[in-house]
């Protein structure tokens, strides 16, 4: 039977990924719409636009790293 600590750690991991995911999504939405606007005028920008759109994905990757550390380093160490 899992105790409260385990539950809280699991919840923290979930929040770390979920919230950072939302943050990335908000940032990517804005960059994405600007990128599509730019591409409508100049189609060659596709490559650059695509690259710029994934830049904020770093946020969710940080979140994922935190979650992984919580689940695979912190939790087994308890």
């Amino acid at each position, binding site marked *: 039977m899992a105790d409260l600590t385990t539950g809280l750690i699991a919840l923290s991991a979930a929040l770390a990924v979920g919230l950072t995911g939302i943050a990335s999504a908000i940032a990517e939405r804005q960059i994405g719409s600007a990128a599509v606007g730019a591409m409508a005028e100049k189609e060659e920008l596709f490559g650059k636009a695509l*690259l710029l759109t994934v*830049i904020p*994905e770093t946020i969710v990757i*940080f979140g*994922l*790293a935190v979650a992984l550390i919580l689940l695979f380093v912190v939790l087994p160490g308890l």
Partner: protein
Amino acid sequence: MLKPKKMNKVLIVGSKDVLESTINTLYDLKIIHIIDYQGSEEGFEIGKPIKKTSLFSEYVLSLRALKDVLNLSDKSADREMKDFEFSKEFKERLDHLENEVMKKRKKLEDIQILLSDIEKIDDVGELKKLGLSEDVNSIMLDLINSKENLIKEKQELEDELKHINEEYRNFIVTAEDFLSREIEKAETPLRLATTENTFVIEGWMPSDNIEHAREELQKSTGDKVHVVELDEVEEGIPTYVETPKPFKPFDTLVDMFSTPNYDEVSPTLLIAFTFPLFYGFMLGDFGYGLSLFGLVQLLRRKMHSTGWQSLLNMMSYASYFTMFFGLFYGEFFGAEIYHTLGIDSVAGIHLPIAHRLDEIVPLLIASVGIGVVHITLGYVIGFINVYRKEGLKHAILEKISWIGILYCIIGFLLFPDYTYPIGGVLVVFAVMMILGEGMIGLLEIFTLISHLVSYTRLLAIGLSSVGIALAINKIAFDLLLPNGIFYAILGVLLLVMGHTLNLALGIIASFLHSLRLQYVEFFTKFYKGGGVKFTPLGIRNEEV
């Protein structure tokens, strides 16, 4: 190889009657980056184009229209063919061809419109109910009945166009290429300074090639041209990096960020290794690597434009690394290979060396470790750049200090018992860094930490892809396949579609994130860019 080639500014001066042969020679040699004359010196005017341009332009316009209509834009020209008879006959032949093609196309379009209209009437059906007069009705009926004939006619026209395409393809493409070159040559004087009887070409030439160019020019003009080297150090020296041919495609990635400056190290060769390495580390699945390899081979035959070819070359390197890491992780479309095949170890090495879902923590540490090496490499190149430009003191203060700070941060993590001594060393490096870059540099320490953490994406991107692949396999093999023929078909469909989608996502995500690691985490440590690309006379834009 890493350093841009040394350039010298040259002046080529000669009498106007050899202007044409001078341009021809330089055009064939492809070694001078001309500086356009702005018309600002007194006594010198901008040159006038060599005659015959307007006629050529007319030809080129019709040829380009033909190329467009016949879908020939990505065919490459046969450079060997050079002798064109630009006589009356050529013009007649071209006019005739253009007329023919345009007429056929117009007809084809008309038929298509008519056919789609008939389709509409067909759908509405029962015309009689509309209460139209007999005459109109019979015309409509005739029209509907002619549908078959129209389709046949359409087919014939398409065949004829195809025939024309096959027969004249080579002629059109080659002639267009040749004429475009001729026009460019003829228009070159517009970029030069001339007086009544002489001309001056100002430009940059790789220092090693000047002697050769001088000889060739004297040969072709009979000593009527003089080449002078100038010892000017100036802004705007064009950059020409001689990248070995197999790594040429990676130049595109560097140029997409910014062309290297004349006095800095070009990162192309490093990227040629680290980009596919990171790509493979992220995608890391033998099955996906194999599919990617197949896809690249397939597209190579279909896409002929230079941009596609260089992209595909990069992707083929990436696919080798993906296959390698697939074996390393022991993954084949998400499934564990070695376990399934019953292989436990080869030559004493336990297989798989590290499965991604089982060895998350070691791989997390490994990806940050790769980051440390990559960032250090960035600072080392930065050191070389600053050292060459501003001397040893600046180089140590600006770059070595950062390497020190980086390793102190790592030290904190690895040896938590020695916080104070490491902290002391960190302060020393931080002071050096502040001397080199100013107080604002302190904020950059946090950027450095975030860059380090950013390398965890090497594992993270891969994990998400493994996760999806695993879910697809689980649903297909455990839930669908064992439950009768209907579910089995569904299962196969899910496997094919699911893995195709996951592969597409993986290919794009790995590409972008691998590139991002180069641009954001690596380049910011040393790369300035903003150089001018060396574009010699004789190389047209689409080839660059």
